[in-house]
């Protein structure tokens, strides 16, 4: 359907004139392509101040609601300008998106296109949400944990922000995910690439931001809830998120709970340390568990005081660990017990709590102060076993990690830029008979500023980072279990190291094409893990050894973004190239671990590296349907040897075709092609490519939506090259079918 441009302009004028000033809680309208006046489907419409995200249908129609008075909408779509639109009391609004030329008078534009941040459209599953975003991959660590991989980097090399607060919690490997549930947040964004001054010094691959719950504008309430069941690993999930506002005070409360069974895999045998094991009944035994997430918070806002918010978040996951993860399994360990939900040894318990408070006050300079205290606990229990000589441990506690983290940020923001300070303190303690990392700390203070010049934006950050750890030693045993010496596993370390980041963002507006370039240079101080680890890392199946002599690495990175659109086609391309001096990564050595069942020693080494990548997203309108393609290409090399860096994700292409069956029902067919992993590190196994099919049905009603999604329809047996399970030769999860229902109930005072 093609809408004449003049009709849209007239409609907009009529709407503007006919509406009087009154509280505005909902708005509907259309999003269309400015040049052609054709409807734009799947555009994301974010309503402010509540932050709720909606999407347009195949007619470009949207219905956005907030439990409080709406003041603006942010509309974005790949290949088009992102705009933020302020309005006064209109109930219908039509918005044109152009190739980043923002001029749709008489509606005023209050926002600014920011090419450094990408809004992620949420789905019922966080892993799916991340995987369908080009440049992001995710590692499935069970239904409770997720590990984003941004441009080939993960763990402590990316930032994950919970309402602006960096999430810590031993994020040093493939197996250490983060505990978040996106249904308890007001949106997800990702920031590609390194050198973003406000993301902190670790965000080499970029950052993922989970937005805090926003303030409702007036009295009222909003409750979102839903249920989900997934055939495959038999996961069930329920969630509810409610907010109530009375005058100046808002309370919000949310909770989600899920239980998941043993992971289903289309595989009958696997190998570990050259041993062959059978898998019974198509499931990885002891990989089920439970996950709980909670949120309680309040926001108090007055003109005099500004806005003060207080949030308490809590997450807990109890999950079995596949017997190969901790120790050498016997075949009997892998036979299962008939109960896919049971959790036996080995198992893990991971929990996180966060107390955060934020104060914001508008003025000549907008003032923001953010303070948080968080705790992360990770406990691994396993059947006691000794490596080599020595007595058998007396407890099941193989490894525990407790980390406490304090973060503060003070920021002054004006029309032309911002400046501020960040500080964080991390204290970590470890325990258990499987030593991996000593007690450690990491403190940071940073001064940050950015300034918008006429031609571009300059950013700078200076940090002072203090890192260190305790010494650690164990008795050294002979074959007769007599102590014959001391096995020194870590020596005390205290470092104070400066680091910095500089960036320049340069937008270039052409007639039909919008482009931008970013150049950044930055340093990164080695992580505690890279400095002091020395033991078996069960999650990666290796003996990993830190290097206390490591120095900060330096990187120079350039990024480019290009987007253009026509009547039926739009494309968005992002690319980067990054040169790293002294890139710290884990590398196999010529030595074997001094303890049994632990294989080769992998040590952290610093070698120069080059990384480059390209991400493409294209949409093609075909009648009422839409063909969408996303693709990511990544290359990472250790320059001194010419081999790939570890865990370089292969080329990945996702094609999907969405077709509306009627106004409420739509179907999506998708195909994901994963190329073979030609770029591998030393001793890293080659991984074959894969071809996976999926489908989805969505039925949208007034306030609710029913969704059916299916992944890996033909139950293909495929290895995920970057998964922790890959090392065991264990394939990714097999076919799953998910049913979900969600409801969004809003009641508010319109007077």
């Amino acid at each position, binding site marked *: 359907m093609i809408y004449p441009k003049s009709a849209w302009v007239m409609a907009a004028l009529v709407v503007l004139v006919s509406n009087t000033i009154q509280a505005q809680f909902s708005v509907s309208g259309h999003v269309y392509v400015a040049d052609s006046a054709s409807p734009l489907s799947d555009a994301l419409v974010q309503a402010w101040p509540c932050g709720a995200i909606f999407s347009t249908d195949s007619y470009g129609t949207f219905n956005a609601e907030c439990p409080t008075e709406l003041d603006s909408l942010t509309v974005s779509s790949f290949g088009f300008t992102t705009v933020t639109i302020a309005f006064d009391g209109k109930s219908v609004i039509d918005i044109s998106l152009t190739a980043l030329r923002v001029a749709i008078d008489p509606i005023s534009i209050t926002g600014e296109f920011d090419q450094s941040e990408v809004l992620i459209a949420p789905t019922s599953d966080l892993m799916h949400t991340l995987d369908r975003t080009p440049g992001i991959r995710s590692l499935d660590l069970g239904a409770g944990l997720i590990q984003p991989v941004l441009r080939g980097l993960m763990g402590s090399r990316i930032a994950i922000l919970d309402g602006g607060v960096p999430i810590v919690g031993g994020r040093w490997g493939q197996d250490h995910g983060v505990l978040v549930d996106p249904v308890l947040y007001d949106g997800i964004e990702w920031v590609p690439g390194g050198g973003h001054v406000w993301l902190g010094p670790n965000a080499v691959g970029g950052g993922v931001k989970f937005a805090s719950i926003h303030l409702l504008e007036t009295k009222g309430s909003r409750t979102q809830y839903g249920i989900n069941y997934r055939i495959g690993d038999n996961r069930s999930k329920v969630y509810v998120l409610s907010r109530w506002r009375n005058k100046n005070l808002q309370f919000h409360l949310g909770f989600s709970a899920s239980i998941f069974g043993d992971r289903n895999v289309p595989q009958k045998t696997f190998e570990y*340390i050259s041993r062959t094991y059978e898998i019974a009944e198509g499931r990885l035994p002891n990989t089920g568990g439970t996950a709980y997430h909670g949120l309680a918070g309040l926001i108090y806002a007055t003109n005099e005081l500004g806005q003060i918010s207080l949030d308490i978040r809590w997450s807990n996951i109890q999950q079995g660990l596949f017997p190969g993860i901790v120790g*050498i399994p016997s075949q009997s360990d892998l036979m299962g017990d008939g109960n896919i939900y049971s959790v036996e040894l080995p198992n893990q318990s991971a929990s996180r709590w966060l107390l955060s408070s934020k104060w914001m006050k508008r003025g000549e300079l907008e003032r923001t102060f953010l303070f948080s205290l968080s705790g992360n606990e990770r406990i691994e229990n396993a059947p006691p076993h000794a490596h080599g000589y020595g007595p058998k441990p007396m407890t099941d506690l193989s490894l525990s990690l407790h980390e406490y983290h304090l973060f503060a940020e003070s920021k002054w923001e004006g029309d032309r830029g911002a400046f501020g300070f960040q500080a964080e303190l991390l204290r970590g303690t470890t325990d258990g008979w499987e030593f991996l990392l000593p007690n450690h700390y990491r403190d940071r203070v940073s001064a940050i500023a950015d300034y918008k010049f006429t031609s571009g934006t300059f950013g700078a950050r200076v940090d002072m980072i203090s890192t260190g750890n305790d010494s650690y030693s164990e008795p050294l045993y002979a074959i007769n279990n007599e102590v014959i010496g001391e096995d020194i596993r870590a020596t005390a370390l205290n470092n104070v190291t400066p680091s910095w980041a500089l960036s320049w963002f340069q937008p270039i507006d052409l007639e039909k094409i919008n482009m931008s370039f970013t150049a950044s240079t930055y340093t990164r101080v080695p992580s505690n893990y890279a400095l002091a680890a020395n033991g078996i890392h069960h999650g990666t199946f290796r003996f990993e050894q830190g290097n206390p002599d490591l120095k900060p690495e330096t990187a120079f990175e350039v990024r480019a973004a290009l987007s253009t659109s026509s009547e039926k086609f739009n494309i968005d391309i992002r690319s980067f190239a990054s040169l790293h001096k002294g890139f710290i990564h884990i*590398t196999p050595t010529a030595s074997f671990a001094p303890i*049994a069942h632990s294989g080769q020693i992998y040590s952290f080494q610093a070698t120069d590296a080059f990384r480059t990548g390209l991400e493409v997203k294209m949409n093609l309108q075909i009648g009422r349907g839409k063909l969408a393609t996303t693709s990511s290409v990544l290359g990472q090399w250790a320059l001194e040897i*010419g081999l790939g860096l570890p865990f370089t994700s292969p080329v990945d292409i996702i094609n999907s075709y969405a077709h509306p069956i009627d106004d409420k029902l739509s179907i999506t067919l998708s195909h994901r092609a994963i190329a073979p992993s030609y770029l591998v590190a030393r001793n890293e196994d080659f991984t074959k490519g894969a071809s996976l099919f999926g489908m989805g049905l969505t039925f949208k009603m007034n306030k609710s939506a029913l969704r059916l999604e299916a992944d890996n329809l033909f139950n293909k047996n495929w290895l995920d090259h970057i998964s922790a399970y890959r090392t065991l030769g264990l394939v990714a999860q097999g076919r799953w079918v998910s049913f979900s229902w969600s409801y969004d109930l809003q009641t508010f005072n319109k007077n």
Partner: protein
Amino acid sequence: MITLFSCGTTDTDPPTICTENVENGISTLDEVDADAGTTVTLLESFCDDEGLGELRWDIHSAEGHSHEGEEEEGFVLHSGTDWSVLEVQNLSGTNADGQISFDIPNTARGVWDVVVSFSDAEGNAAADMVTPLHVENDFIPLFTLTDVNGVDPATWTEEQVWSAGSTVTLTGTVEDSDGIADAEVLLIRESDETEIWSTEIAVSNETSIDFSIEMMVPSDATSGEYHLEMEAEDGAGNAMHTGFHLEVE
């Protein structure tokens, strides 16, 4: 691209076995047979085009797992499974021999895996080489199970699952050239190492005793993992311990 950015050596070839350099290298043997109480020497020769790194001998009980390419051992009653050997040796040059000598303790019986791992100086690791070591033992008593509930254990392909409250008949022999001084069968709950059932086999220093035991799995036995243990001591005071893993439901 790899060539473009490569600034140093790119040795990605793992080291290899050079069987022609030694006689009876372990890679040429299908298995190694040895007696408890003896000294065993194993050797092999290794090559690399650039330079060798390290060699590791890892000898551990084969109970509870198998290795790729290994022939199925079937039902084996292991004893002395705690015994293991771990030794790391440096290899230098492009060709080097590795050798290990070890004493097999008098308490060991069953099958052990000899895993040979080796790397080159760049860290390229070859695939592990695994050879079974069959250990015979004339020092400690020998338990043989011929029949469990009417089934020869040698035909078992899966873990045994017994029901709480059921009766299990165990038939077999226990023998020792010094005579059997003591013999006992026990059912142990693995979660807390609690003995939940046991019986002694009547002995009077015979060198071979046939037994048939009716074991009652307690009706209040909680579901989970258990171990059937068989213990004996000969007239010379040599004690042995063996058994197998099972599940009670």
